[in-house]
């Protein structure tokens, strides 16, 4: 049961990460278009966030238990707060950036960093902690890493397909961003609960 809940949360976070990228493209397009330039900035921002999040998560997982727990709560709070900022303040921020910055490159960089980098970094830092969760329960580290990132990537694929072919054609982007916020808050809460379970549970 614990394993099922754990993998469900891992898949859910994978869905959120890559689905968020497609929603991000829809947020940006009224202001910057949907050119290859926009996609390059968007994809690079997400990859930078995955990278930073993984390193940050690795660092958190090496902390003492008490500090590790505090680190998780901070990461979850940052993820939820920054997703809320993107969901409710994203359009207004983009309007300000567009009016205030004449350079497309500078505007896109600022938009991507302010709206996407922080939440995706915060979500990504749970990956190494999920690996540690499995490793402390007897799964060899290499296998634990393969399982977490394999399952998470399946979630990424599901997130892209679900968002592109089901959600965007039928729902408003603002509605979807609110759903993302709610699911992220619930998913992170569940994951923090799971990560606190003793290793013999």
């Amino acid at each position, binding site marked *: 049961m614990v394993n099922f809940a754990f993998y469900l949360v891992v898949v859910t976070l994978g869905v959120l990460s890559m689905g968020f990228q497609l929603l991000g493209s*829809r947020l940006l397009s*009224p202001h910057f*278009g949907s050119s290859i330039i926009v996609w390059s900035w968007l994809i690079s921002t997400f990859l930078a966030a995955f990278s930073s999040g993984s390193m940050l998560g690795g660092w958190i997982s090496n902390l003492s238990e008490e500090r590790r727990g505090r680190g998780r709560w901070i990461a979850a709070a940052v993820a939820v707060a920054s997703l809320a900022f993107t969901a409710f303040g994203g359009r207004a921020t983009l309007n300000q950036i*567009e009016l205030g910055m004449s350079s497309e490159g500078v505007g896109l960089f600022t938009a991507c960093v302010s709206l996407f980098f922080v939440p995706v970094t915060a979500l990504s830092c749970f990956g190494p902690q999920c690996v540690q969760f499995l490793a402390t329960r007897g799964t060899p580290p290499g296998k634990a890493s393969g399982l977490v990132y394999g399952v998470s990537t399946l979630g990424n694929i599901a997130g892209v397909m679900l968002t592109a072919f089901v959600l965007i*054609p039928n729902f*408003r*982007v603002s509605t979807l961003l609110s759903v993302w916020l709610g699911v992220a808050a619930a998913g992170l809460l569940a994951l923090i609960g799971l990560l606190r379970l003793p290793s013999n549970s």
Partner: protein
Amino acid sequence: MKILLTFCVLASAAVAAEAGNYIERYDTIYNSLTIERTGTVVEMRARAHGGEALESAVDLSDPLKLVVPYTRSLFGALFLQPKPERVLMIGLGGAGFHRLFTAAYPTALLQTVELDPKVHELCQSHLGFKPTAQTPVAVLDGRLFVKRDKGRWDWLILDAFRGGFVPPHLKTVEFYRECAARLNDRGVFVSNLHATSELYYSDLKTIREVFPQVVIFETAGRGNVIACAVKYRTPVITDAAKWPTAESLARAPFAGRLDLNTVRDEHWALPEQAIARGKILSDDFAPVEFLDAMKTNNTKNK
């Protein structure tokens, strides 16, 4: 001997003409383009799903000629605003519309916005377009240009395609409001639509959400519909009987190239029932690609 000489001259002319033909392909950052010259006609096509979409064409022996049929329908805007002095066109293509327009209205400003720098380059190098002070071209996203622009326009023409479809951010109610704000009080918003998918009805519904009066011209047999919309309620523009006559609008360069009576005959009633089932597209909800993929039965109402 004379016959043989004539044959040789004609044969060598044919070989020379054929030798001038070419097909060149370019992958730009936004498009996959084909430029094909056959005789004196140069076509610009964009690779799209299932083939190539004809973006533009110019006859180099008569650059004023409207080779692609829908470009004549763009002149339908004359019936609603007969004195275009400032025209903004989003989408350059091969500038198939530009030559005749500037010949007919030499003092008018025709500002063009084109996203793809390679299209701008090919238009000049292969399709013989030379921008002037009266026909400047800005290489920029059309929506960004409209947002930053402070001018007012008599006609604002949206004719921007990428591989046969219009980018979603140029299809929304917010963008049309931005366009309406840049029009003169009696200005006309002109949009080239494709009547072959469910997107068409959502397009019309969205345009009408911003512009209270809309008329359409359907280019016969081509699937193109030119929507002309204005931001005022009176005078009424939907009654074609009250439009200026084609003869009163004719200009010398139109002779043999543009028959405004033909354009007038392309005026159709709006497909009200189908529009009712369309969706209003917004920055928040614009499933343009999916609506465009749903082919429709385009029933006409004259």
